[in-house]
């Protein structure tokens, strides 16, 4: 499993996938937005790899979660910060793990409250499957569709970035 989840290899895959899609779409001035917390670490790394000078944005989606009516407000909410105007921009949205797709729905709702972007490309380090919404990443570091139901993947960081497989819900 550890060999499978070599972080540098996954980042290489993400980087080259992103370069391809940016070129195919003719996007030459994208901005990066990471979803807290793992996505922000990845936005930092990928921004440097892709040579994007613009500082990346950080999104905390707590105010947009669809389970507020079930569990209440996340007590550790932090301010979102988008240090650029999103209106008309091409956005690369980054998260560490995608499963149900609900986080991405919330993130897109939040992004649109800042303005109307020209496009959004979704990049995730790991795709766990188990989707509940029709949302698919454009670029994936690695698809891990074969984990057991009780296993969870978690990105740890920021220095160094590493991937952990956790046993949960015994």
């Amino acid at each position, binding site marked *: 499993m550890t060999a499978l989840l070599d972080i540098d290899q996954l980042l290489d895959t993400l980087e080259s996938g992103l370069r391809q899609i940016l070129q195919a779409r003719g996007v030459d001035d994208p901005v990066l937005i990471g979803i807290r917390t793992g996505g922000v670490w990845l936005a930092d790394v990928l921004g440097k790899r892709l040579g994007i000078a613009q500082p990346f944005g950080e999104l*905390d989606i*707590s*105010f*947009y979660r669809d389970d*507020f*009516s*079930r*569990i*209440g*407000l996340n*007590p*550790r*909410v*932090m*301010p*979102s*910060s988008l240090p650029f105007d999103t209106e008309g921009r091409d956005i690369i949205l980054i998260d560490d793990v995608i499963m149900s797709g609900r986080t991405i729905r919330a993130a897109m*709702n*939040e992004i649109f*409250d*800042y*303005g109307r972007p020209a496009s959004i490309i979704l990049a995730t380090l790991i795709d766990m499957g188990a989707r509940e919404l029709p949302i698919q990443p454009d670029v994936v570091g690695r698809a891990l569709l074969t984990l057991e139901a009780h296993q969870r993947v978690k990105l740890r960081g920021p220095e160094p970035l590493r991937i952990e497989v956790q046993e949960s819900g015994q």
Partner: protein
Amino acid sequence: MTANDPSPNHLQLTRDGQLRHFLTLDGLGQPLLTDILDTADSFIEVGERSIKKVPLLRGRTVVNLFFESSTRTRSTFELAAKRLSADVLNLDISTSATSKGESLSDTLLNLEAMASDMFVVRHSQSGAPHFIAESVTPGVAIINAGDGRHAHPTQAMLDMLTIRQHKGRFEGLKVAIVGDVLHSRVARSQIRALNVLGAEEVRVIAPGTLLPRDVEDLGCTVEYDMARGMKDLDVVIMLRLQKERMEGALLPSEREFYRLYGLNQEKLGLAKPDCIVMHPGPINRGVEIESAVADGPQSVILNQVTNGIAIRMAVMSMAMGGQMAERQQRQQEQQEGRA
């Protein structure tokens, strides 16, 4: 804090310690107060966006139930609820049903029948929001927007947010509250909050006639002389002279009060050079504060207003969230009971 105050926490908090009403700061610990401030910080950022709205309370109905008039508090609660996407109903009760003889309980039953989810209550009677929280249908959150001389917890918390923004911390701070402490529900809540959050010293500066009996028991020191009281201050909070509450001859004259306890440049000069000046508003210029100070570089009075919206968004969403989490738990337990 105060010995005769029954702990309100069985009412304010869910079993796992989440807020479900916001009635008083009594009994709330430092972690929860810090959570409120942190959450409010995130809402400040929302207020700076082009679309100043988040969907947390979408489809919920918030009723502003003001038995006592207030422009600033009511409008910031209204704006806060709207920025959380709630529908807001403003009821000015003094011009409404109670004047036709309807009892408070009947008014509430009618509002609950309209499927309200939250009441923001201001009342001249101490304990009114507490009474409503005890009798309201489970699932409806009550927020205290000021009750009698008892408490004004959202005002105190927005003051704490303003202090933290400018000073970055509470440890080591010397804070003075100046003026009509006797009639002030804000002062009580502020003293409580400052003590819980770890301020080094809370000082009240006032004439003896405008201090409640045993004021030290609230957790503060007392100074009757303003020049002495201003020494070493990091924060000075001026209170409004509550003219409409003033009964009898507690003061020789407004002019005399201003001479002794009004904040002017000269007295402010006795505090630390970076001392900030706060006032809950509305300001009586020339009665408790000089215009040059109120509008001066050390004044953070307008920051307080902006922070008021963020604090109210924080407690409204936290209390509503607590109510909904509890509702979910109840349903789960009912299902398990049936199974």
